[in-house]
């Protein structure tokens, strides 16, 4: 079936663009970059149809595995380079290659005026390669390879504008924060290798399922929690979410592809993949649910007061990822993956739409300097409206289906979680529509600003009037808009049923769904009231609740807290202890001391080298005599 072609095509694209891109024309770079991903997408389609996915019946009940070669063989441990495809992987493959292709097409238009064009597309293709390895890998080590690879590409692309300090800082932050999570993940992999003697998904999960649930030993919980630590890093959950908002320093297509649609959902995928382990560790599963809920809630509150359009969507991403983990934690794994898919559609669309707005505004990202864009960018307006209603959970659009499935599962698990989730859904609807109204309605606030403002994205090419984006940008927007509206009817929970049991659903629409829809509509109405009808209200509220507002506006001072508790002690400690003491007076002293000793010894020994050949001759003779004496003393042997 040649599964290896799926990741290898983007890798070939990376190789061509990365090595030869400097000499290729833009058309050629576009063709290679988007073409390789398109071929990969088509190959996914072909593979899936060959496996009978698009026909009737029950395809892929068993995972289809391909073994390529044995990578590591050490004692009992045997790790191969194996790719496997099952129902979960099939969903992820469709999302990654499908949405990935659309975003590549969009990037052709968006990046048209940027420097480092070939570099951008080479990184983007490399990302696709690692992401596909991540979802295709049939053991934890290959998953880890993909996991680290996407982290690398994320770092490279966040710091794409490497001449800007804030961009490189954001890249470093993302990379370092992810290291913490990856460390946990690596420990989990070690524990799995120790306890199961294998890293293959099939073997490990087979052994886990053979154990009775009651015997969930402490180490099972430890493995689950460490895996989840990895997930909190990659999927931006409390306490490691801080890198994702800063990651918006990268170009907007990167935000859409990596930091909304695909990479950040890797944690959700990994936890879902390891569901067997988590189901045997109920404490860990509860931690997942609580962290997910807390992240969803707090990120949503932070999103309420952001003024940068991309930051609003970034906090929204963190919040939606929290929802996914809430779903996983309450046992609704298929609902979590369902939300991964719908979120990939509408959040990619939100970011691409934001990119289109930024493009129209010649690089301006501040919502306070937008307004009234509806007339100038009608396509962006309509597509962003589709995405906004989808994320707000308005039926019958995609966000409603997946969010409702998660909230229903949360209600079964613990009603208070449901109510917090509903409240968060209301906030989500509010801040998304706040951004929407601020950008597209009201008086234009950009006359003065648009000309001289070359915002963060360094995307200015000063046209004055806002203008609609080129077709290569709005066609992907339109496709994603259709998917955002209709994607909810792709019944992922049913598709994943052989892997994850779906709770029985009563007839009709349950009241839990009605309440969450009501919350969403209330949020939209509030946003409309605040930002369309009487714009004075939000300012008044901000003034009368100045303390909570300041906390939210400054994101609860979490960054400052981490800076003063972790970063600065670390830097100070490194400087005063590790540098001045350990390095300067420890390591340096040893190295310099060795050199000095050797030189002193040499100073003594060099006197033998008088330059007089006859003295050398005398030394030779003396030495020979000594050797002869030594041999004689030793008995002539």
């Amino acid at each position, binding site marked *: 079936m040649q599964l290896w072609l799926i990741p290898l095509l983007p890798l070939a694209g990376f190789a061509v663009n990365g090595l030869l891109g400097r000499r290729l024309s833009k058309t050629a770079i576009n063709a290679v970059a988007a073409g390789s991903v398109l071929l990969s997408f088509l190959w996914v389609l072909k593979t899936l149809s060959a496996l009978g996915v698009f026909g009737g019946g029950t395809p892929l009940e068993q995972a289809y595995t391909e073994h390529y070669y044995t990578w590591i063989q050490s004692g009992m441990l045997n790790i191969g380079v194996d790719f496997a495809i099952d129902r979960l992987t099939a969903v992820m493959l469709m999302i990654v290659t499908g949405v990935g292709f659309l975003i590549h097409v969009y990037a052709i238009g968006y990046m048209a005026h940027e420097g480092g064009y070939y570099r951008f597309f080479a990184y983007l293709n490399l990302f696709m390669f690692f992401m596909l390895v991540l979802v295709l890998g049939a053991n934890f080590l290959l998953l880890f390879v993909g996991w680290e690879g996407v982290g690398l590409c994320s770092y490279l692309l966040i710091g794409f504008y490497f001449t800007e300090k804030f961009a490189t800082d954001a890249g470093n932050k993302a990379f370092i924060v992810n290291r913490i999570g990856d460390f946990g993940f690596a420990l989990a992999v070690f524990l799995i290798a120790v306890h199961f003697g294998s890293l293959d998904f099939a073997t490990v999960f087979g052994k886990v399922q053979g154990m009775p649930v009651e015997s969930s030993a402490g180490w099972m919980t430890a493995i689950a929690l460490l895996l989840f630590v990895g997930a909190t890093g990659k999927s931006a959950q409390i306490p490691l979410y801080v890198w994702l908002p800063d990651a918006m320093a990268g170009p907007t297509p990167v935000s859409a592809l990596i930091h909304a649609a695909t990479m950040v959902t890797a944690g959700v995928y990994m936890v879902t993949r390891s569901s067997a382990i988590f189901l045997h560790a109920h404490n860990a599963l509860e931690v997942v649910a609580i962290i997910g809920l807390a992240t969803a809630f707090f990120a949503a509150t932070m999103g309420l007061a952001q003024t940068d359009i991309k930051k609003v969507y970034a906090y929204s991403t963190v919040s939606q990822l929290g929802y996914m983990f809430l779903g996983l934690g309450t046992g609704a794994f298929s609902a979590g993956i369902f939300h991964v898919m719908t979120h990939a559609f509408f959040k990619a669309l939100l970011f691409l739409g934001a990119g289109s707005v930024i493009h129209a505004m010649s690089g301006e990202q501040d919502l306070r300097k937008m307004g009234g864009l509806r007339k100038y960018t009608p396509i962006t307006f309509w597509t962003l409206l589709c995405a906004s209603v989808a994320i707000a959970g308005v039926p019958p659009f995609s966000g409603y289906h997946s969010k409702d499935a998660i909230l229903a599962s949360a209600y079964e698990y613990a009603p208070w979680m449901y109510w917090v989730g509903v409240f968060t859904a209301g906030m989500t609807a509010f801040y998304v529509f706040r951004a929407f109204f601020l950008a597209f309605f009201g008086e234009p606030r950009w006359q003065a600003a648009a000309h001289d403002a070359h915002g963060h994205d360094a995307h200015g090419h000063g046209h004055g009037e806002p203008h609609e984006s080129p077709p290569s940008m709005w066609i992907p927007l339109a496709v994603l808009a259709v998917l955002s509206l209709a994607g909810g009817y792709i019944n992922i929970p049913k598709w994943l049923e052989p892997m994850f049991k779906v709770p029985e659903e009563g007839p009709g629409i349950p009241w839990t769904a009605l309440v969450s829809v009501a919350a969403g509509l209330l949020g939209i109405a509030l946003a409309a009231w605040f930002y369309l009808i009487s714009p004075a209200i939000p300012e008044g509220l901000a003034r009368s609740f100045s303390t909570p507002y300041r906390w939210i506006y400054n994101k609860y001072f979490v960054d400052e807290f981490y800076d003063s508790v972790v970063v600065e002690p670390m830097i100070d400690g490194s400087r005063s202890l590790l540098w001045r003491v350990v390095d300067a007076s420890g390591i340096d002293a040893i190295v310099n001391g060795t050199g000095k000793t050797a030189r002193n010894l040499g100073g003594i020994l060099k006197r033998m*080298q*008088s*330059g*007089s*050949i*006859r003295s050398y*001759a005398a030394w030779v003779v003396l030495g020979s005599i000594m050797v002869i004496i030594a041999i004689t003393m030793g008995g002539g042997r």
Partner: protein
Amino acid sequence: MPPLPPSVPLSWYLTLSLILFVLGIAGFLFRRNIITVFMSIELMLNAVNLSFITFSYKLKQVDGHIFAFFVMVVAAAEAAVGLAIILTVFKNRQTLEIDELSSLKN
């Protein structure tokens, strides 16, 4: 190989070898002309060759012969290189005084 005259005992050969070797050492240490020093080294090699051959004959083993040939080959190579060096030294320094060639130190 014709037998040695019975009147010449083993110790004589070894004594001759020793004398030659000591002469070589003496020349090596005390002569001041490089060529003479060089010849002294050759003398030592040949003194050793002599004792090799002697023992080889006495013990009826061919090893000593082989070793002697080996030493001669090395000595020939060494002579070629050594004489070339001496020629170059003379060209550059117009002297073969061994005590004046002492710049290679410290």
